[in-house]
């Protein structure tokens, strides 16, 4: 295993027995590598096997076939005792937070090191440090029932990090939170990734979460990884149908029928969709074409955002001018390497 790799799945399959004869295959030949210090996203619809997949990393789920490595240790081959030791290096947070209701916040955070050899004073100091890290130092003696969802997840993060783990597994960690709280939890996770260098694995069904913080993603469909790679290239050039559907949920670069009806294209006019497909410098395209080809470019829809410092999204414009000018403009646009150009024909962009 290369030194930069932290987790590796090799041909991992997993099936549950649903009855004596029937088996339900939850994971099918999964191969993936999670590198140190990265934020790795696993996205899929519910029932796709995301939660099972992430639980193979800390051995809460065992595999039917294949191997899961954490550093150089093969998880499924470890004794129960060594597996518990490895779990100390793997933090995990959940959709439902899973705080112990009968324990105070400080006791909850201390639970993973409660039976360690650390003295009481040392544990107290660590708990204090962790609660400060997640921004809840004043809640040490409160009980979980008095906290909001976002605060509960912060406590869960503090608990997951108290053992100084190398990796933090997040199983739908923001799915029970409102959008604003989701943002603040994602900010916190990003901060922890930067300041502690901790590797994050994020399981989610929300593309927005992936777009916000992930470096690399794997798209899971019915137990199979249909696509994986770095988040920017997947966003600009998705291959699998499912990936495209997920990306469409975050993109506004679509033209609705009602909008289409308001644009009455003349014979010469062309409706054109321009999408950024590489991270080369953004040039003032609209100005260039209008100066160069004396053409009018009317922006109908615009959705451009910066993903990991690179432009993502594009424009839908109407090119208006004489037939030759429009043809030249389209030719010029199609020669540009950092954009993809699609012209609206017969009811869709081609």
């Amino acid at each position, binding site marked *: 295993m290369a030194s930069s790799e932290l987790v590796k799945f090799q041909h991992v399959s997993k099936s549950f027995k649903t009855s004596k004869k029937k088996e339900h295959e939850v994971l099918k030949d999964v191969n993936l590598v999670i590198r140190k210090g990265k934020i790795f996203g696993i996205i899929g619809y519910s029932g796709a096997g995301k939660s099972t997949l992430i639980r193979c990393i*800390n051995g*809460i789920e065992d595999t039917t076939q294949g191997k899961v490595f954490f550093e150089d240790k093969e998880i499924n081959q470890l004794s129960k005792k060594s597996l*518990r*030791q490895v*779990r*100390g290096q*793997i933090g*995990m947070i*959940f959709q*439902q937070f*899973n705080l*112990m*209701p*009968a*324990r105070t916040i400080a006791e909850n955070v201390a*639970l*993973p090191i*409660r*039976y360690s050899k650390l003295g009481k004073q040392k544990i107290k100091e660590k708990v204090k440090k962790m609660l400060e890290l997640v921004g809840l130092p004043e809640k040490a003696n409160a*009980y*979980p*029932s008095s906290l909001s969802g976002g605060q509960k997840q912060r406590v869960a993060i503090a*608990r*997951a990090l108290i*053992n100084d783990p190398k990796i933090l597994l997040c199983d739908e960690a923001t799915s029970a939170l409102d959008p604003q709280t989701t943002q603040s939890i994602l900010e916190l996770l990003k901060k922890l990734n930067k300041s502690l260098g901790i590797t994050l694995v994020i399981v989610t069904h929300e593309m927005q979460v992936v777009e916000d913080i992930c470096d690399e993603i794997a798209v899971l469909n019915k137990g199979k990884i249909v696509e994986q790679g770095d988040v920017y290239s997947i966003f600009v050039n998705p291959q699998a149908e499912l990936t495209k559907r997920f990306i469409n949920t975050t993109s506004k670069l679509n033209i609705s029928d009602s909008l289409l009806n308001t644009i009455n294209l003349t014979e010469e006019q062309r409706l054109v969709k321009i999408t950024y497909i590489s991270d080369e410098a953004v040039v003032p395209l609209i100005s260039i074409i209008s100066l160069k080809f004396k053409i009018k470019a009317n922006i109908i829809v615009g959705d451009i955002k910066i993903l990991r410092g690179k432009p993502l999204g594009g424009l839908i414009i109407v090119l208006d001018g004489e037939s030759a000018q429009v043809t030249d403009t389209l030719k010029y646009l199609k020669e540009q390497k950092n954009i993809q150009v699609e012209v609206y024909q017969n009811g869709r962009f081609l």
Partner: protein
Amino acid sequence: MDAFFSKLFPNVVSNLEVFNQAIIQTLQMVAISGVISFLLSLTFGILIVITKNGGILANRIVWNILDKIINLFRSIPFIILIAALIPVTRIISGTAIGVKGTIFPLIVGITPFFTRQIESALNETDDGLIETGEVIGLTPWQLVWSVYLHESISSISRVTTITIVSLIGLTAIVGVVGGGGLGDFAIQYGYQQNQFDATIACIIVLLILVSIVQIIGTFISKKATH
């Protein structure tokens, strides 16, 4: 005050020493068999929860044995159980009558019920909490102590209250077969000698006893809920 009691409970006042003795015997029976049964039921309850299918130490054989034994003893009516246990009671306690002779049948009679109660209290623990315990690397026994038991204090005190109230009922039944206590007193004086005030006095004392148990149980249960 004495005159008042003499008028209302003439037969109790004239047998006051026996009545007081009966109260003490009932308290002894409840306390001794209650404590022993609590420890046994906690042990069996934990075992049955962790050995169940999907439990943290799943073990079909242990679970099946426990489950069947509990069902067996729960299906025998208590008064028949006392009679059936007499030979064993003699071996264990040296006698089958008096307070000494009632402890063993009381424990055998209440423990299966108590175990089921503890089992249901422990089963209320959210699966997510158990999974979290495993995720943070707790050993099975640390999980039992720090998650199952710690998170169930409120439920356990609730079911213990229910069980002790049932146990008080059972102590009255053992009274009938020579066990002593308030049940014995009520039968001997109230029923057989037709002294109705003796029956009423027993009822009042039992009512007070049950109320005290209930109040303490509710208090602990509330205290443990956050």
